[in-house]
């Protein structure tokens, strides 16, 4: 158990504590769940393997205990407590207790559990039976309407950008967010949410302190480029047109992406980062194809309080078909058919810093709006400083985006060359994970 070179074995049936905590909607729930992970408050607990379910009663602050049920196949959670988070702290505590082997096996679930599971099954079947191909005529009309609206919105933005540089951006730093919000709102109405987001970000660039003017001009210029691209959409090669459409904000249905040809490989999960913009939580999982050497970013979303997709676990490898969203330099992907259970990690090889530079150049050349490129780097040593750097065997040096977690990279590597997963940005490498003897540490 304490051998650092020990092999990692998988017991698919029972979750590990780490897997339980991965489904927690936020850190506060995880902490509250841990506190409920002792037998004291729980009574009448049980679990069955088929159906895969887990249940129990938890003493709460009220008179009656809360009834908690977990459908392990989904996973899905149900609890009579008033919390709006899923899974709530009771479900998390119960899962942790189960994970520690403290929930007895039962032969059949209680009636309440069975009826809930059956109701869930019925809802799932109904959803699957709903027709997925909408009426094609209506769809065509909707898409024409959209194209017209977006075009008008883009032209509007074009005028606004030009007016800005004609009269001078010097007022931007002082003007603040109000004017930008109006422009962004109009773009949302024009069904161009991607452009709306870019415009909203101009506010933070203008307020970013030293060097703001240079950065703001860069952003205006790239927006102008995007506007130009949209105006000449039909002249562009299809991959670049797809990139323009995506960045403007045309929706792409994941079903359509999954219908394209996938890339089958043993995909290693090398990074996992959750972001929160107040309304939406976004989970970004970095996959690296161990044979193809390709990198992909899988995005999933959740409303605050809802669990995020926890099927991709850092330190595991998945034999699956990965389908890339269309674009000039495809990075975003969706996982399609999985050809088996996740396996433990094995050897991975990444790029050196020269290779990283080349990859970045190629990405920007294909998609000029690239701001994030997932990469795997091998043989780099971390150098503390302000800012930190990485250096490889050839002596190449690259700066890193600041993060407290860089000390973890240094600690794990012990100063020796290490493999890390990173996202290359215009400002430098943003390291998101480091390879250890028995897997990945990600943040």
């Amino acid at each position, binding site marked *: *158990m304490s051998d*650092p070179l020990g092999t990692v074995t998988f017991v698919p049936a029972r979750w590990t*504590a780490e897997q339980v905590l991965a489904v927690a909607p936020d850190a506060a729930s995880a902490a509250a769940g841990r506190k409920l992970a002792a037998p*004291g408050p729980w009574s009448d607990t049980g679990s069955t393997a088929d159906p895969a379910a887990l249940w129990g009663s938890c003493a709460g602050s009220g008179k009656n205990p809360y009834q908690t049920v977990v459908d392990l196949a989904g996973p899905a959670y149900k609890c009579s407590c008033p919390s709006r988070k899923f899974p709530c702290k009771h479900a998390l505590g119960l899962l942790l207790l189960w994970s520690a082997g403290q929930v007895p096996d039962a032969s059949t679930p209680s009636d309440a559990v069975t009826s809930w599971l059956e109701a869930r099954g019925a809802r799932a079947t109904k959803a699957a039976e709903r027709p997925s191909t909408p009426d094609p005529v209506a769809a065509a009309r909707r898409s024409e309407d959209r194209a017209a609206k977006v075009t008008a919105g883009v032209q509007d933005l074009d005028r606004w950008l030009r007016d800005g540089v004609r009269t001078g951006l010097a007022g931007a730093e002082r003007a603040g967010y109000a004017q930008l919000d109006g422009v962004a709102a109009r773009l949302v109405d024009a069904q161009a949410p991607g452009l709306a987001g870019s415009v909203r970000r101009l506010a933070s660039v203008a307020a970013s302190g030293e060097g703001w003017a240079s950065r703001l*001009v*860069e952003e205006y210029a790239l927006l102008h480029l995007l506007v130009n691209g949209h105006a000449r959409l039909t002249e562009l090669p299809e991959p670049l047109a797809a990139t323009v459409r995506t960045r403007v904000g045309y929706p792409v249905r994941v079903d359509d992406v999954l219908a394209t040809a996938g890339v089958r490989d043993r995909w290693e999960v090398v990074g996992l980062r959750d972001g929160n913009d107040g309304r939406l939580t976004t989970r970004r999982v970095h996959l690296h194809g161990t044979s193809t050497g390709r990198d992909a970013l899988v995005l999933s979303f959740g409303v605050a309080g809802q669990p995020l997709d926890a099927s991709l676990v850092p330190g595991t490898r998945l034999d699956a078909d990965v389908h890339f969203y269309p674009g000039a330099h495809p990075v975003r992907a969706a996982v399609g058919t999985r050809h088996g259970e996740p396996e433990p990690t094995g050897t991975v090889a990444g790029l050196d810093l020269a290779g990283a530079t080349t990859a970045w150049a190629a990405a920007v050349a294909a998609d000029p709006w690239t701001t994030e490129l997932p990469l795997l780097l091998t043989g780099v040593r971390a*150098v503390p400083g302000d800012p930190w750097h990485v250096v490889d065997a050839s002596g190449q040096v690259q700066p890193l985006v600041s993060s407290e977690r860089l000390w973890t990279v240094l*600690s794990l590597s012990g100063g*020796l060359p290490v493999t890390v997963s990173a996202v290359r940005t215009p400002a430098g490498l943003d390291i998101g994970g480091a390879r250890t003897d028995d897997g990945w540490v990600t943040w």
Partner: protein
Amino acid sequence: MGDLVSTAAWDDVVTSALLGTDRRMLDPGLLPGEVGRLGAELPASDAPGRLLGAAALWTVAARAGSALASPAVAPPEPSPPETGRVAGPAARARLDGLLSRADGEGATLLTHWLRAAAERGLVAPPACLPGLLELARTQRRYADGVRAVLGARGRWLAAQRADWADALGETPEAPSDQTRETAADRARRLRASATQDEATLEAALADRSVEVRTVAVDLLGRLPDSAFTRDVVLRAAPALRIERQRLRRTLVVTLPDADVPVRKPDPFPATPTGTGRGAWLLQNLIGATPLDHWERATGTTPQDLVDLPVADDLHPAVRAGWLQAAARQGNRPWARALLAASPFDRFLLDVLPEDERVHRLLAALRASDHASLTTAFDLAVAIVPAPWPTSLVDAALTAISTGEPWKTWYATQVHGQLAAVLPDDERTEAAVRAAALRRFDSDPWHSALQRTADLLFTRRQMLEELR
């Protein structure tokens, strides 16, 4: 691609954008290299478009082409190989969880984890080291615990950052300059030395601090043949004798002359207000006299002597002297005799062997009156080291769960006390839960005891993970 490092051209672009093309035109053809060439092709009639187009060309080219010019940097020397045994993945997950908690119970468990890991010779996994070092830096009370689980990698990592190295560098054993030692330090050092060297102790008897002098008298209590003890006995012996008064054997006291101290300077503390000087000296002399002297002088047993009435209301002084002597000399028969009237005297109990101590506490815990129960429990927590024997655990839990309900504020305090002394095994945990169930659900004792049982459960799991 031309020289992109020169930013003067780009500054020009930015300036034009800031001022506005209405005021300041830009000629993109003046930009270096390919950007300039392409820029020159942009339509001149559309000034803002031209500016933005040139800026776009520049931005994309700069981003794609830059190798992010960086200075030469020197990576740190790699860490020496880890010689310690690294805690396994389950223990690591536990430590991660504890490090992210901000509550009191988490803090207790974290201290427990650090100690248990250090006792097993384990070192913290590298992924947890930055968290532990930050903890030691921001909360110094963890510094010792963290240092104990660092290992080679941890010490190397700490050395990479000045504030971490500082946090760990302070060693509590840093020898203090002896000339600046305070009296308290001297007293502490003397007591820790437990010296039996008469010369050292005679010198300490003359120390200017009463604290040090008292420690000297304490230590001389173990040396019945020392000059000091013989001098004390010379003054104490004539003070007590047994006489028959009104058909009862009584201890008659002749107060010693308070103007003649046993040593110069007077080794005993100054007389407190409200106490006669003679009685005070008597008490101190008896406190420093070997107890078997009284047995020999009077030919009676300790119990008989303790039970004797004392003339002239001097019983408190005599008894206080005997209490002090029994504790100093570790005299068990006298301690037992004195405990009859002072069953909760901690110093007397300390003299007895552990099983006898526990036996007496058990009897006290089974007593029916509420006041004795709480005193006995507090005393047990103070003097019986963790982990408690089963008999004591059961007696305490029975007292708590079936005795008169104690005040509500006490429940939380008892939870903390129990958590510190109860063993972690399954039997104890089950016993605590059973005790909890004997109280009504709404009783704060019920939840306090459940929390105690949960704590034992968690600690046991932690130790499992550390194997």
